[in-house]
């Protein structure tokens, strides 16, 4: 799920950036530092949408660096149990398949793939229905439901299922080609 929230961060800026563009430099650095990171509490920071407030800078003794407390709005992404997500399949093997929804890695076990889909090994391993109409292989897009998450400091890992109504392949690159 995506959230638009306000976060705060202390930014350290080198004195050489002081000048008329100080604010721009600070924002640019903020984007570089924060976007794409993951925190266990808020999830992945997808994008910074605006800077609310930049506090008074404090010169650090000894280094000359200045610390600014910055409040910024950003979009964060955090998967939850029970959430429906769309993901791209990255690897298919006998145990199930791995998929990615942006930065989140999701594993769908073969227990939670519909029973009529069977694993086919080969150059392009895949799960296929007996009539061959539906195929899950690398780069397929699937809609899945999250049934478990594991949130680490820098990474979120999920377990998903496609064994439910309206879940499964939504766009099959093999069929389109």
């Amino acid at each position, binding site marked *: 799920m995506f959230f638009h929230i306000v976060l705060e961060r202390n930014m350290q800026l080198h004195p050489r950036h002081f000048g008329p563009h100080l604010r721009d430099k600070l924002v640019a650095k903020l984007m570089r530092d924060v976007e794409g990171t993951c925190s266990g509490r808020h999830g992945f920071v997808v994008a910074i949408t605006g800077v609310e407030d930049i506090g008074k800078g404090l010169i650090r003794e000894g280094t000359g660096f200045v610390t600014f407390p910055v409040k910024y709005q950003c979009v964060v992404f955090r998967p939850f*149990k029970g959430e429906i997500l769309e993901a791209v399949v990255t*690897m298919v*093997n*006998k*145990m*199930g398949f*791995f998929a990615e929804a942006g930065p989140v890695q999701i*594993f769908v*076990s073969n*227990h*939670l793939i519909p029973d009529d889909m*069977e*694993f*086919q*090994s080969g*150059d392009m*391993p895949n799960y296929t229905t007996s009539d061959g109409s539906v195929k899950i292989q690398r780069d397929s897009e699937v809609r899945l439901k*999250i*049934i*478990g*998450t*594991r949130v680490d400091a820098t990474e979120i*890992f999920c*377990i998903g299922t496609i064994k439910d109504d309206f879940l499964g392949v939504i766009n099959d690159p093999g069929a389109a080609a």
Partner: protein
Amino acid sequence: MSLVADTPPNSSSSDDFASLLAVELDSISSEASPEIEVEDDYELGPDSLEVTSPDVEDDHDYENRDLPLEGCRLSLVETVSIGVTGWSRHRVKRRKVEELEVMEKTNGKHVEYVDKFRLKCSVLLLLLLALSFVLLVLYFAELHFDLQLCAEASTSNKCLHPVVIKDICVVCGEKMEEASGVALGYIHKDLRLSKDELYRVRNLDKKNSLRNKKLYLVLDLDHTLLNSTRFKDMTEDEAYLKTGADTLKGRICSFDQQYVLTNMMPCGRLIIKGEIREAGRQTTNAVVSRVINKVQNLDLDEGSLFRLDYMQMFTKLRPFVHTFLKEANKMFEMYIYTMGEPLYAAEMARLLDPSGVYFSSRVISQVDCTQKHQKGLDVVLGQDSAVLILDDTENVWQRHRENLILMERYHYFASSCQQYGFNCKSLSELKSDERELDGALATILHVLKQVYSMYFDTELGDTIGDRDVRKILKSIRKEVLKGCKIIFSRVFPNKFPPQSHPLWKMAEQLGATCATEVDEPVTHVVAMDTGTEKSKWAVKQKKFLVHPGWLEATNYFWERQPEENFRVSQLKNQESSSAPHS
């Protein structure tokens, strides 16, 4: 436990018992021996016991120990100890009493006392026994109840957590406290399968095997598919590889600065140059034509010598390996299984299979082994009866010898020759290589094809589930030396039972019959030198007289080798010319 509290004799019995004893004894002793000082009168309580005699003091200790008995639940051990202490106390008392009895034989009144005392003691003892029995029953009843609870818990919770990844069960999403089961680190670093699930997955495609028409092939890396050496282990004679590769590196780096290519550069042309030079020296027409053929066939992108700068390593792929993998991929689902580091394994897999078609994620390295210094098929997701193994080391496959096709070791670099104790020039130093078309990989590919076609032979009916590559392998092996009768001469050490010697076993596995005495049907005499009686006999009878190397070569190549190449008299020459190939 309420029952303990409910049992009336228990809580008070020991006290009663003790005080009763005290009263009895005191009365006896005071009457019997007036010299003994008695501090208190016949009051109840522990104090009265203290001074009467050392025996009774012991009693006091027992009583203290028995105190936890009151009100709280008794364990089985305690129950028994009570019985024992009660009994021993009884015994002590009785002995004391008996002594007194002897002393006071004349006193008839006293005898009456003693009788009464005995009766009381036995009643109490019985009560104690009964109590301990009740507690025992209770204990087991509770144990049973606990077990029932456990069973209920396991049936009510339907998910058995068959697969766990990163400590989450993949079926129910529940967090797991502790990791269990077999780790399949090569698929995902935190993936674990329970034993049952592993069994299920391995059986899953048994029924599909006819449709998929694929068996499993487990390949070793070092000395089987390739040979690597570190820069620092290279000899002077190999230095040409470094300089040659460097010039090529410049060309390729300019082509693609970025990523892998800086680390892996095909240097195929270099080797060919070397061979042509060597060929020129040999001036054999056949060799020249072979090398020229190779030049034409060789695609530079599929070079076989790689320099991995960041690993400080040179890697030489075995000749024919590309064709081998391409062909084997049609018949097998291939795994790499190496005792090397994961990083090395991944890098070698990339050299062998740049597009990831052959192995994808099936690269098993040292960290995935379930047993130290042993390779096992338990991490391979295929049934044992459908797995073939290619490896140069037999010992690591203790549990799966029957699946193993032993490979002749590929030594290209000098360091690897030294490692195995060959004191000869390596292929790299000789600027030579294994032959491509009849080298080890080509021969083994032939065997693999044979096994594959026998496994899926439709004429054998549809009972494919019963087929077993191990049996097929055995039967193919049996054909190799069929009809040969072999005797050995001065090959085994004295007093060594010949039937258990590896060469003897090898010969039998290859379908030959072995004997210890010469007779007419003998076809081959395997000997170390020509001087022995059997050797002379062989020469006289025009039987084949061969060096043990003949048997080993036959075993590696799955084909009866031409005996002329392994004449015993040629021993010296043989060693020098064939050792680098073996």
